């Protein structure tokens, strides 16, 4: 979806294509999983269990949106898992059960997220370190720094106010019982991200991911949009940290492995690694699908040891199916012709 090469009037048409295509497979998969869950446990779709699912899934949805921003711009962010862990540990240590400190510390966490995102972004774009290396480095730095700071065992405690966002909700809502704040936050973030991706910034981001040279020639400041994508990802990780810490409190393992789960969710949604293709909605659906898979495995009493294998097979099958269906390809008229020598040259100079 290179905005600059799009013929006039193609805007609404390509939007329709994306809706029909990219999100198709993941939607089918999600519905399929929900149907199987429903046969196993019909009460799952009565309000409270569904809301419990939403509460659990909200952090991953938010992380996936952050990861989407980075992946669609052609980069990776491996640091989000460590960042979530670091943020929860920092919050517990600084708040230490003191209600009055809740909001100042949340402010500080957002600031810390901003700094981590800026460092990731600037090191990648200005120092030209591949993002997979930059964020791998950040991941290790944060992991080690938290270990060093806490000696391997987090101290302190989160305040009740802090935990409200991840754990509680609006009580007494008809049918569903309780409307979790986590769900409200996830919906707000999703809508915000959809609007963002429709703005000029969003289009520049996709353009930079599709072909940064072409984007640069057409006036996009690639380093700036990519840096902002990393900042967005780090801020989303911070919000996810607030929800995860709220959901289950502090443990030494919090956040471990979340970066891979987030990337899996985004890819499952049909967002292409390497950038330039895929929608926010697809990433959100991908995140819901991953969480629904965990729930399904649990409902089926699938042995925990085999679960990662089953998860892997399903994801590969889904992505392969999507590619055969053509979900992940550009619409015919937008596909570049590979035999044009000038375009080949542009492509090879990527990053």
């Amino acid at each position, binding site marked *: 979806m290179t905005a600059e090469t799009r013929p006039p009037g193609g805007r609404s048409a390509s939007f329709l294509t994306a809706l029909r295509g990219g999100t198709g497979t993941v939607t089918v998969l999600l519905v399929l999983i929900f149907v199987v869950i429903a046969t196993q446990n019909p009460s799952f779709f009565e309000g409270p269990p569904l809301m419990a699912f939403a509460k659990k899934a909200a952090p991953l949805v938010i992380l996936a949106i952050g990861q989407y921003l980075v992946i669609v711009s052609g980069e990776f962010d491996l640091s989000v898992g460590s960042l979530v862990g670091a943020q929860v540990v920092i919050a517990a240590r600084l708040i230490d059960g003191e209600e009055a400190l809740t909001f100042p510390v949340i402010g500080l966490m957002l600031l810390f997220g901003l700094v981590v995102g800026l460092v990731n972004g600037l090191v990648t774009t200005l120092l030209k370190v591949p993002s997979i290396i930059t964020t791998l480095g950040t991941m290790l730095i944060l992991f080690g720094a938290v270990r060093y700071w806490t*000696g391997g065992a987090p*101290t302190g405690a989160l305040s009740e106010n802090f935990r409200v966002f991840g754990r509680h909700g609006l009580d007494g809502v008809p049918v569903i019982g309780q409307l979790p704040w986590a769900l409200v936050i996830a919906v707000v973030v999703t809508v915000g991200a959809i609007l963002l991706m429709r703005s000029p910034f969003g289009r520049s981001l996709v353009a930079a991911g599709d072909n940064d040279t072409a984007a640069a020639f057409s006036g996009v400041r690639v380093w700036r949009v990519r840096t902002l994508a990393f900042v967005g990802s780090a801020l989303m990780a911070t919000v996810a940290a607030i929800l995860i810490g709220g959901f289950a409190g502090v*443990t*030494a393992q919090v956040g*471990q*492995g979340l970066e*891979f789960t987030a990337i899996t969710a985004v890819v499952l949604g049909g967002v292409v690694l390497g950038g330039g293709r895929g929608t926010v909605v697809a990433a959100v659906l991908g995140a819901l699908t991953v969480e629904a898979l965990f729930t399904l495995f649990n409902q089926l009493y699938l042995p*925990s040891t085999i679960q990662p294998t089953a998860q*892997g097979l399903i994801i590969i099958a889904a*992505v392969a199916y999507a590619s055969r269906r053509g979900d992940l390809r550009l619409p015919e008229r937008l596909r570049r012709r590979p035999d044009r020598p000038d375009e080949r040259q542009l492509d090879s100079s990527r990053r």
Partner: protein
Amino acid sequence: MRAPRVLLAGVAGLTLLLSACTTDAPEGTDGAEGSADGGNGAELTPDDQWFDQEEFETQLAQRDIEPEGPEDEPWMQAIDPDWVDTTEFAIDDPEDAHLCFSNASVSNPWRVTGFITMEQQVEALVDEGRIGSFDSSDAADDDNQQISDIQAFVDSGDCDAIIISPSTTATLTPAVETACASGVPVIVFDRGVESDCMVTFIHPIGGYAYGADAADFLVENLDPGSTVLALRILPGVDVLEHRWAAAQQIFADSELEVLGFEFTEGDGAQIKDLVSQHLQRGEVDGIWMDAGDGAVAGLEAFEDAGQPYPVIAGEDELSFMRKWESEELTAIAPVYSNFQWRTPVIAAGMILAGEEVPAEWILPQTPIRDDELDDYLDRNSDMPSLHYAKFGGEDLPGFPEAWVDR
């Protein structure tokens, strides 16, 4: 064709990511899983690989044996000791002796707590002139790293005694034997190795006793027909597998209904989610855990679902014990004695002075029950929530700051 190429790369990348994730889960426990239709928990026969009837009975019996040694210093007590002579290792100037410690890792709060206790014990021994100096290496749970750490200690020739906390049993055996062959006394503690070349092997009673303490408590405190959910950290680790094998053995002889077991990696979010899902499908009356990490998250799932608290077996980790007190739970804290981290350095001092030590130094391992709860919470009132109540360092220099400011 550009799109398929991108796709191929994507799928290949994904495969890499997935294989990176899956290698974390050790294999070899399929026998204990039960079949898919029967559910995880229907199988209550322990896997032969992890169950040794004789050792199981020995450990259960050891719980009732009065240990030898000073009553208020459990880290100096030994169950049924077989004392060995160590005069061949005695040196003239123990006050200058250099101890070397190869640590498997400090990758969980239990090991962090223990390692702090060990360092403070070293300080005390140096002050007393029992030893001179102490040096440690950390293998970060990597067998190869630990093998080379031990080799480095042997090659340096500076060590007057080598203490090893092995990361795994079979793989580290040759490395421990190399250390023994160098002529200096070797002390192994916590997990064992398949060799008896060391002067002493120090450990608490063991995993079977731990799992049995927890399971017995549930059997005693729940009505017949009650449901029990088991939460386990991960498969394939012997100390954890033994705990579960003992519990399977005891639950099989009881009238409790075991709903199943779940692997949680000790992650609070996963525990809370899994327990919530079980609560959606029916009542859970009891929780058995193979380690207490995240017990509080599991209890919160009951709070959020508006259900009464279960009877629960956690661990002597303080976050759980504080919750136990504030909510007046029916609970027990099985203990995998953290104070064992003191014993190896003390033993090294004894060996270098030519004093007798037990060949297998079995430390007591007593769970904390309701009547002792307040006492242990009092003693540890300043400690962080991921600290272990039976760390046994109250009389050491640096108490309590060393454990509080970790």
